[in-house]
Structure formats: C-alpha cells, structure tokens
C-alpha cells in the first residue's frame, strides 16, 4: 500500500479555527459566575515572610477572598511541591511551597492570591494586601553563590551548591598529558526564556453534582499536572480532569507544574465558584521558568592533525531557587558535549548552584545549545591554531555512519547508555555546506572586504536525544457514525499534533483525515499520559498511533471479511469503507462495521471478534532517538556599530522519517529563530541582589521578522531503526547549534581584527568593546 498521508504536506487541521479567531485558549473559556485571581508576589529576592494582612484588600468592593498558605487545604498548605526528577546527587530536597510559608526565595514568588469579580479589581486588591518581609542577603549570580562566605540562597541550606556531578569516560589525564596540543576556553552562556506569546493560564471549576474538579491549564503536560494536583490538593486522581486546550506556544517552561496550577483549583473548591487566572507578561518574566547562566571552563586535547584526544572541563550552572525538574538540564548539557565527534576521553564536572532567582528548567534545546557551543568553539579554536579549515576539523573527527549504533560512553538522562541509534553526520555537514555554497565563501568574503564590508561564515553541528519515554498513548475507535475517534495524551502548542497523528491514523486504517475526531491534551479522554517536551511526541504518540491504527485496521479487515464473506486478503480499506476486491466488489462502511462490532445485547460475539473497533496503544521507546544536524550561518557585521545581520542561514536536518515535511520545516525555522535570539538578543538580566532588570518586551529582545531570514532547509533522513515509524523528534534541532554557528560567523567576519568570542548573547556593545581592545578603530577611523 503506497503512503497517501504519511510524508505528505497535509494542510493543518488546526488552521481554519485559529485563522478565523475561533481558537479556544484558556482565557477564551467562560464559566458562568467565574471569578478572577491575581497573585501577591514577593518583591524581594530573599526575605523572611513575617506576616500577611489581607484586610485592606478585603475592604474593596468586589473582592471575595484573599488566601495565603494557611488558607489552603492539606497537603499543599504545608508540604512542598513534589520533585519530578530526583537525582541522588541533589543534596537537599528543594522545591517550593505553592504559597510561601516563612521565607521567600525569588522575586515574584507567590505569597497570596486575591479572588475578585474581575482581574482589574483583583489587581487593585493585590496591591492593597499588606505583607511584611525582613530582607535577607540574596545570591544574584551563581559565581557569587560558590564564593567563600557567600550568603545562603536558602536560610536552611548550608551550601549553595545543590549538586555536584561528573560525567566521564576514558583516561582523560593521559589524553591531555600526551597531547601535542591543548587549548582552553572560558565560556559564558546565557539562555533566556521560552517566551511563548500566550502567558500561563489556569481556570478551575468544581461541579459538586459529579464531584469533578475540572482545570483548564495552558500546560504542555496535563496528565502530569493532574497527578501533581491530586497529590497537593488531596483528591483522587479520577476526581480531577485537566485539559490543555489551545495553547499559545510552550517551548519548555509550560511543561513544569506551577504553584498557580494548585492554588487556583484550591480557591475554586474553597469558594464554590469557578476561578480564572491569566498570567500577565510581567508575571511571566518574573515567574515562568527559564534557562539562564552557565559558566564553562573547558579544554580540548588534539594531535597534530586536529584529531580529538580528549575534552575536559568544569561547568557552573545557575539553577535558581528551586529544582522542580531536578538537574536534568545541566545533565543533558554535560552529556551532549561529545556530540557527533569521536571523543576518546571525556570528563566534565558540574556544579549546580542555588541562586535567588526563578528556577531554571528546560527551554527549547534543554542545555544542549550550551554543550554544542562549547564544543564548536573548541573545534574552531583547533582550526585556527592549526590553520585548518573549520569544516575539515569536523570531518576529521566525525563519528562515521558505519560506526552506528555508536556507544558514547555515558549514561543519558533517559537512564540508558548514550547510544546513537543512527545518523550520518558527514553527510549532514556536506549537505549543509553545499547548500550554503561554503566552497565559494572566501571569494564572497574578499569581494565584500573590498567594499569595506565584513562578512563571515560559521558552522555548528549537533546530536540530540529526542523521543524520550516513558510513553504517550493513543486510542483509536471507530464510531457508529463512521467517524474515527482518536484520543491521546499528547498535547499541542503549535506543533500540529492533531494533524500529524491524523495522518498516521488515516494512513493505517484507511479513513479520511476529515473523519477523524481527535481529543488531545485531556485527561478525561485517555487514562495515562505524559505530554510535550524533549521533542518526544512524534516518536511516542506517533508510534502509538501507528500501533493502535494497525490494530484497528486488522479488526476492520477481519470483521469486514466476515460480513462480506471474503478472505481477509481480499479487503482494502480506503476513504472510510472496506471494499472487497473480488466479484462485484461489495463494500461496507466503517460506521456500519462499528455498529456491528457493538454486538447485540445478550448475544455472544463471534469467536475472534473483539468488542467495538477500538484499540489503545502505549508505545514505549527503548531509548532516546538521536537526531542530528548541521547549520551554516553567513552574517555581516557592521564593525563600527557592532550590528549583526544574518545574510543566509542553512540547515541540514536529520529527524528520521518525516511525517509532514511542512510541519517539520516549520519546527526547524521556528527553532532557528529561538537560536538567533539566544545568539544575539535574549538576556534575562538580574542585578547582584537577584532583582530582575528585564521584565518586559521592551527590555527583553525577541527576534522580529526583520531579524530572522528564511532558512534553506535540507532533509537528511536516516531512519530510526528503533521505532516502527522510523521517526525522531524535530522540535529543538533548529535551536541547538544556532548560537555556535552565528558566533563563529561573527568571529570569521571580524578575522582581520583577530577578535574572538566565547559568549552568548553576543551584543553589539561587546563586539565594539572587543574591536576597540584589539585596536581596530585606529585602523577604521583613519581609513
């Protein structure tokens, strides 16, 4: 059977409603009588919480309640939130209370919540709640946090180093001891926030008649959220339904379970009214998790040919005030450094440092951009020192396709040995270089220089573990109407989940895509789920859709064959009908078959026939699926202002088999935009006391349409042998190597001045400062 839907550029099912303004985001959901919430938040980065006086707020008309920690039900009243990803190296259990108890640990931490008739009134009242604090010394920078005599980020935790771990294999000391060349770099990397266009949102409504607490949340993980909420609010799992409706972008921060997702439902229960909380953008800047600073001290040992003998170093990671998702982000960073290269010996020591800032958790790329940046800067350094072409250095060190599956030597964050299942890294690079016309770049560069223009080219390569487990289920059920109901724990924040899963199901069972009625992101529709993060849904939910679809296909064929009196091999499924391809081609519609599959009350089903035409599959991947790619950035630098323009951006992308090329390209292009932001623009600034300085879109720069060129995207499909679809994840690859490629290109553009950069974001001001220090302006102003 030729593929009709899988691999096709199918128009997105999500589009018509979103385009005509009929999307249904949390704030679009209206429950009669609903009230509105506004949180009172700490203005201090670190303080003792002495008392809360709600009376001035309660005096305002339209205010229904002011709730603090002691007004909440057990266990959330006094127990801290569960930590989702524990790790033995974490020295203290470190998660927050949903509403602060005796101490606050970052600016914006929720302390109380006001419930009122409107958000306008709730904000008036929140400003009136009188809270007494006693300021405590705060840790504003992770480097200060590890210094001798540093203040405690948490009064009760003696050391700000929450975890120290090492990832290593091979004999690193020997490698370095015997090396012909050793090069060191100190690297500062800052990544900012996911900054989805829709802020967080929670609407909770309790129906006493059915004893069901329904929560709409702009979350990437409603099933996990429901579990967390059940634990915190003390209710049975099945008495809670969490729904992620249309969600306006995720990118990682919405995968976390937040205090507000517990407090708002608690308020709804307490008041007997629906309560809605829509985060505003300032709150988002203060309280939505982000990635942030890492300081790397790394070295590479190579032979005279530039072949890697070993890589070693230390990394300091700013984890913020809590670790809701443990230490996976620095862990992933540490495990990603070897990348697509043969690195015979490796050792990275990581210190995870508490600071009095909002927690850091994965943002698109999840620590990998930092690892790639470190490795690619080291390789560029090797190229420069040994006077080799930068692409050539990569070629000499790539893992070759015939070495697949390739065991790196580390344990990855999925708990399994880091084994790349498939990939052709040399082909990826050559594809990107050809598409970028790398070969003729030096000529372009010379021509530009003659005109007084500085252009440069840079390369970035990466390997990314995607499709992380444990599972994502899909139920396929043919309905008596002929429609096909599909339910999944997968969610959608723009990646087109509905469309891609429909393509797979329609492909398998031969129904029309428009006949699929899919429920996503709803704990009421499927019992178990995980959600969207780590580019996992195409693999997990995609394969479940395949397996469920295959199962239902077999059931349809078996039943149709029985009903039509032909062999199963004579049945074709297409367009929602089972057609026998013998005789006068009798056929029967799926709806009719579904009715028959319900049986007759009191009568046994024929032997071999299952009830209904349905199947639920929970595919569990054996390990991560490793995708890879190569990026080539061509930039122009205005040496006088430090302004950078990206002239051309090329991506060769291997995400295994592609379900919908339009959607995959969209993910790559969108990912590159985040990478450009990380490289040049995005910086969440705090002062040394942990006070946030960038709290609006005026201060925090997101890329605009004039900042992001349209990428040339080439696909290199190395099939994933470990899952039945052969797919890998595609959501983050656009971001991961972008800062490496862009900073390398800037350095290349300014090579006449011999300036070097090991930091992101790289601002125009820093470029000018480096040029000045290198004496560039003596030459340039005199020209």
């Amino acid at each position, binding site marked *: 059977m030729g593929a009709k839907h899988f691999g096709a550029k199918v128009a997105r099912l999500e589009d018509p409603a979103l385009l005509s303004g009929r999307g249904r985001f949390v704030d679009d959901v209206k429950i009669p009588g609903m009230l509105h919430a506004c949180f009172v938040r700490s203005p201090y980065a670190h303080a003792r919480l002495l008392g809360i006086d709600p009376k001035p707020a309660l005096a305002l008309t339209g205010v229904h309640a002011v709730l603090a920690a002691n007004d909440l039900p057990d266990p959330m009243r006094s127990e801290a939130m569960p930590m989702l990803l524990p790790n033995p190296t974490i020295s203290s259990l470190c998660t927050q209370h949903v509403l602060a108890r005796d101490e606050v640990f970052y600016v914006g931490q929720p302390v109380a919540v006001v419930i009122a008739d409107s958000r306008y009134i709730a904000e008036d009242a929140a400003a009136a709640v009188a809270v007494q604090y006693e300021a405590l010394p705060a840790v504003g920078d992770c480097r200060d946090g590890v210094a001798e005599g540093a203040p405690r980020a948490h009064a009760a935790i003696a050391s700000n180093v929450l975890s120290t771990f090492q990832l290593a294999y091979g004999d690193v000391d020997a490698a370095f001891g015997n090396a012909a060349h050793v090069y060191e770099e100190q690297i500062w990397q800052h990544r900012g926030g996911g900054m989805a266009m829709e802020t967080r949102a929670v609407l909770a409504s309790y129906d006493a008649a059915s004893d069901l607490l329904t929560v709409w949340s702009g979350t990437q993980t409603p099933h996990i959220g429901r579990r967390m909420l059940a634990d915190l609010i003390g209710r049975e799992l099945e008495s809670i339904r969490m729904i992620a409706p249309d969600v306006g972008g995720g990118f990682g921060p919405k995968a976390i379970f937040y205090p507000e997702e517990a407090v708002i439902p608690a308020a709804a229960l307490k008041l007997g009214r629906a309560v809605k909380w829509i985060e505003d953008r300032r709150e988002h800047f203060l309280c939505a998790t982000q990635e942030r600073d890492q300081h790397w001290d790394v070295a590479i040992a190579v032979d005279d040919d530039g072949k890697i003998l070993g890589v070693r170093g230390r990394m300091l990671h700013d984890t913020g005030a809590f670790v809701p998702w443990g230490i996976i982000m620095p862990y992933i960073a540490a495990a990603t450094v070897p990348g697509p290269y043969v690195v015979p010996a490796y050792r990275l020591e990581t210190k995870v440092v508490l600071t009095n800032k909002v927690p850091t958790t994965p943002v698109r790329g999840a620590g990998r951009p930092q690892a790639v940046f470190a490795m690619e800067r080291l390789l560029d350094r090797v190229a420069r020192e040994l006077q080799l072409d930068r692409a050539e250095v990569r070629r000499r060190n790539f893992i070759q396709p015939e070495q697949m599956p390739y065991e790196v030597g580390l344990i990855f964050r999925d708990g399994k040995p880091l084994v790349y299942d498939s990939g052709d890294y040399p082909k990826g690079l050559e594809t990107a270089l050809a598409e970028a016309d790398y070969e003729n770049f030096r000529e372009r560069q010379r021509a530009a220089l003659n005109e007084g223009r500085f252009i440069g080219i840079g390369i970035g390569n990466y390997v990314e573990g995607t499709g992380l487990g444990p599972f994502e289920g899909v139920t396929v059920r043919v309905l008596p109407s002929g429609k096909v109901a599909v339910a999944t724990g997968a969610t959608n924040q723009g990646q087109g989940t509905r469309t891609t899963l429909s393509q797979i199901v329609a492909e398998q069972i031969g129904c029309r895509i428009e006949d699929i009625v899919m429920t996503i992101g709803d704990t009421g529709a499927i019992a178990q789920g995980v959600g969207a993060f780590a580019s996992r849904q195409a693999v997990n939910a995609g394969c479940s859709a395949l397996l469920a679809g295959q199962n239902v296909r077999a059931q349809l064929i078996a039943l149709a064959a029985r009903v039509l009196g032909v062999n199963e091999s004579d049945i074709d499924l297409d367009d929602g009908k089972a057609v026998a391809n013998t005789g006068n081609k009798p056929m029967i519609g799926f709806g009719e078959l579904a009715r028959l599959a319900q049986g007759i009350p009191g009568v046994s089903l024929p032997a071999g026939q299952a009830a209904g035409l349905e199947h639920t599959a929970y595919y569990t991947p054996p390990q991560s699926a490793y995708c890879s790619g190569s990026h080539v950035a061509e930039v122009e630098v205005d040496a*006088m*202002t430090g302004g950078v323009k990206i002239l051309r951006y090329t991506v060769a992308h291997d995400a295994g088999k592609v379900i919908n090329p339009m959607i995959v390209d969209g993910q790559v292009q969108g990912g590159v935009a985040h990478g450009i932001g990380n490289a040049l623009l995005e910086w969440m600034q705090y002062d040394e006391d942990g006070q946030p300085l960038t709290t609006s879109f*005026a201060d925090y720069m997101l890329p605009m349409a*004039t900042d992001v060129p349209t990428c040339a995207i080439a696909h290199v499909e190395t099939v994933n042998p470990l899952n039945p679809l052969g797919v890998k994840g595609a959501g983050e690859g656009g971001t991961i190597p972008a800062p490496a490629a862009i900073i390398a290109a800037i350095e290349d553009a300014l090579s006449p001045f011999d300036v070097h950069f090991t930091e992101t974001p790289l601002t125009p001001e820093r470029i000018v400062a480096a040029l000045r220090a290198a004496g560039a302006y003596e030459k340039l102003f005199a020209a």
Partner: protein
Amino acid sequence: MKPAPFDYHAPRQLKEAAELLASLPNAKILAGGQSLVPMLNFRYVMVDHLVDLNGIADLRGIAVADGRLRIGAMTRQRDLETSAEVAQHCPLLAEALRHVGHRQTRNRGTIGGSLAHADPAAELPAVCAAYSALVHIASIRGIRQVAFQEFATGFMATALAPDEMIAAIDLPIWRQGHGYGFREFARRRGDFALAGAAALLDIGAGHVVRRAALSLCGVAASPIRLDAAEAALVGQPLDAGLIRSAAAAAWLVEPIADIHAGAEYRRHLAQVLSTRALTDAARSAGIDVPNLV
C-alpha cells in the same frame, strides 16, 4: 496588567481641555497612548484623571506658512510620514519617522505626545532639536512659545507645567535643496535608538557650509545639539575630512548608561552615527562623499 482606576474626560475643544487640566488633580493627557498606556498598565503611573485630546480637531493638522511648517500636537506620526508637505519641506522629519516604532504605534502616536513624553532615546525630540523647533504651549493662561532647547529640560522632563499641553510645533523650513540625514542604531527595527544623529546642512557655493545643525538622541538625558561640530562646519568647504573632524566633537558628550548600553559604547556610536548622518546630509545636498565609517 490592568491600570488602576481613573476618570476619563474627552473634551472636544482646546479651551475645555485647558480648563480640565487646570482643575483636575493628578490628571494626565492622553494623546496617542503608546507611551502612557503601557505605564498605566504596569501601574508605574497612576492617575486620577485622563484628559483625552484625541477629539480636539484644532490640535491636528499640518500647515506651511511664513517659512515654517506648523504641526498640530495631536497629528498622528503616520500622517506626518505620508504627508507631502513634510516630505517636501522637512525631509529630515520624514526620514526620522521611518525609525519611529512600528506602523501600529505610528497610527496612534502623535508628535506632541512624543515631545511631551521626552524619552531620551526618542527620535522626534532630536529632530525638533536639530530644527530649533518652536513649541506652542496652551493652558487656561493662553498660549506661550518655548524654544525647543528650553523645552526639553532633562530625563523625561519638559518645561510643561502640570496644567499645560503642547498645542503645536513649528519647524523652520530650510532652504530648498538643503542636506539632511538621520541615522540611528537600535537593537532591532523600530526599537528606541541606543544613539541617533540628526543632521541638517545648508550648503552654498564652493560647497561651503552656510548653516549646520547636528543633534543626538539616546546619548544624554535629553537631545543635545553638538555646537562644537556645527561651529567646525560652518564657513568651511564640505568634504570627508571636515565631516570626520566635525563628528569627532561627538566624543565630548557624557552619555547615559542603562541596561541597554553603557556610556563608552554610546559615545562611540555618537561619533559613528554623526559621521554617517553628516555624510547622508552631504550626499542629499548633492556633494559626493565616500563612506567614512
């Protein structure tokens, strides 16, 4: 982010607006709203009264007379951008407007609002400084005129009393064929300038500079005229060397520093952008000058 409560007033006549401003406590003018309303939404600013001037027809309009362009304070930036009179008589203004915000903000934003808000990085105040604009200020006491250099008094501060409003701005029209240039450096398109330079040159026979104006935005608490640069230019034949030495006067400024840029960098930008703006001005007046920086 919802604003704190206020009473809203929408006068239809200038006189009514003046009376409201004189009598209402803690009142602010609502013009385009593109700067004020974000501050209200953040609750950085809380007012008891908003006096909306958008309904006063007398405050809008562009008219040419007596060698000057008179612009009503409530004239939309977008209307200035598309105005034939502005393009013909004050091309520096037209050029600068291309850098002011985004189309949505120019659709509502007004020239008066920009001058009254007095953000140090704003382009329009720097243009008015270059033109030595005259600001007409209205209140219940009547209309008074203030030269722009006295109007802009400091960081987000002007000579406006709490009950006064800008009624109109006069831009003197430079001789036909004059040179103009506006250059700014911003992190992204439409952002406030980290630094910007506005240049006007009146060039006579033998390329001799008869008159020059060079102002900077984003560099100090309010727009500054580079008197030293102007003095260096006037009376000299314009060429690359003159531009370079005039622009070097930008090095004397004492720039502000904030999270967007430090002082050293702004000073550097001031010199670069002054050079480029003067170069543009020279070229627009028909003098061929190479790229200097």
